[in-house]
């Protein structure tokens, strides 16, 4: 059996499969279906310094091979997370990673500083790419200066593994990746959702409450794969790949493109056990092709 362990800037993962923020709750929502310790890690719901109600309903529209959402970072804030949710998840035997978002570099940094205090959270994923909030989110992630300013502020406040999640809604994702690398990111994850829209022809109205939303699911996979390949060839830090991964073959494609680990997102909605199946499937692929370790195939595709 091939060695599935990977290392993301010092963070040891039992296998390269993480679950993507916003699709897996706090992990406990899926505990009836899978043994959470069989995952490389769980990236929990986006957390902000202050509570957020998110956007009004409707927040979701189905598309061919995907879905749009405009949840808008609904969460009860970092204090609630520390006092109510952390005690419930701290003993889960996998890497529990918190996705952090904010309205200003100071917000991001303060939120990250609070999470830095939590012993059982070894890493954060910095969300500078949420397309569904007016201030912050993607606003920081679409310029090199904006992205660097948030990462610098957080880097000063946060001592553990810092993964920065990038937006695909940019002209050059490699420029943003290089900027966050220079600002002190330990790794980058990509891609967040692509901005999209859906219209109800009977009502002649846009379906989502704020008009637009983030597209996810298998339909975005080729875009994500291309971006992961480009970024992996441009940066020195590890890349975590995501975007429409639905099975082990998809995951292997991202590893070959240069991702050191991958995230499963929307596919969790179709099959709540898919994350564990993907981890197993990667192992089977490696065994079948005679690779001793998953690290051997990272970036193998020229």
């Amino acid at each position, binding site marked *: 059996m091939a060695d599935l362990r990977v290392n993301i800037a010092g963070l040891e993962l039992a296998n390269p499969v993480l679950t993507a923020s916003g699709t897996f709750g706090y992990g406990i929502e899926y505990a009836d279906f899978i043994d959470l310790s069989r995952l490389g890690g769980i990236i929990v719901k986006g957390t902000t310094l202050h509570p957020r109600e998110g956007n009004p309903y409707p927040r979701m529209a189905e598309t061919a091979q995907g879905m749009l959402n405009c949840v808008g970072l609904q969460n009860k804030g970092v204090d609630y997370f520390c006092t109510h949710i952390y005690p419930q998840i701290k003993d889960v035997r996998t890497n529990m990673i918190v996705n952090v978002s904010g309205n200003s570099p100071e917000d991001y940094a303060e939120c990250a500083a609070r999470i830095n205090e939590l012993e059982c959270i070894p890493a954060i994923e910095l969300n500078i790419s949420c397309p569904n909030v007016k201030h912050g989110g993607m606003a920081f992630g679409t310029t090199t200066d904006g992205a660097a300013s948030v990462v610098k502020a957080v880097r000063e406040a946060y001592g553990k593994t810092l993964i920065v999640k990038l937006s695909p809604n940019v002209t050059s994702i490699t420029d943003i990746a290089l900027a966050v690398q220079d600002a002190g990111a330990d790794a980058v994850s990509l891609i967040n959702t692509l901005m999209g829209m859906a219209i109800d022809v009977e009502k002649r109205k846009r379906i989502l409450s704020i008009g637009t939303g983030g597209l996810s699911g298998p339909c975005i996979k080729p875009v994500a794969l291309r971006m992961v390949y480009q970024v992996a060839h441009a940066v020195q830090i590890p890349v975590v790949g995501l975007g429409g991964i639905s099975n082990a073959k998809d995951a292997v494609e991202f590893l070959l493109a240069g991702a050191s680990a991958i995230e499963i997102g929307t596919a969790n909605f179709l*099959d*709540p056990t898919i994350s564990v199946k993907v981890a197993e499937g990667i192992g089977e692929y490696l065994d079948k092709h005679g690779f001793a370790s998953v690290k051997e195939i990272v970036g193998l595709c020229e």
Partner: protein
Amino acid sequence: MMKYVLDLRVTRVERLGERHLLLVATNPMGALPDMCPGQFAQLRIDDSKETFLRRPISIHNLDREKNEVSFLVQMVGEGTSSLRKKQPGSVLNAVLPLGRGFTMPTSAAEQFLLVGGGIGIAPLLFMGREMLRMGVRPAFLLGARSASDLLLLDAYRACGDVYVTTEDGSEGERGFVTQHSVLQQKRFDRIAVCGPKPMMMAMASYARREGVPCEVSLENMMACGLGACLCCVEDTVDGNVCVCKEGPVFGIKKLKW
């Protein structure tokens, strides 16, 4: 309640008129998990090109002796319509049981009125049968557009008194469920409602006026069905909450309408 992903095996598919299906399935791997009236399953849609997600369908009945669960499905779009291709022996992949169901009686003396409109009658049969098992005989108030849209009435009649309204007057009293004379003639201790939102809102205002505890079952569009994605939220007195996890059944005091 523990949730499962199961490859159920279809035992019966019955077409009911133009737009409805009764799907009955068993668990070939063992006993079906226990479920509560008002809970739902996320059914995987296998033969649809236009749709992507599972479809949340309420538990229409659970027959523990036969180890069968049934779903009453209205074929609305391509997803639900594709379920008509299921045949005895087909796999029906289901995530269940999900959500919180209706409050059940605590004593045999409690008078329950179960109000269903259109496909909203689906979870009420399971509720009626569970109540009967507890020795409580409920009353049903069922509404439809026309007599031909009234489904499986005999099954409901086997559990309790059935009052009917149709919009065209082709069966029962003419009009909407909220206009039925039984609401003036009888006093109920508790009301459970499932149906179109305007109907549930009208029943909620009746219940408020009469001071009767009332629960309604919402059907906001869902993605995960597990409380993970936060897509199906309802704006309640406690803020935005997931209909799939905190509901689909809510006491009307929780709702802002």
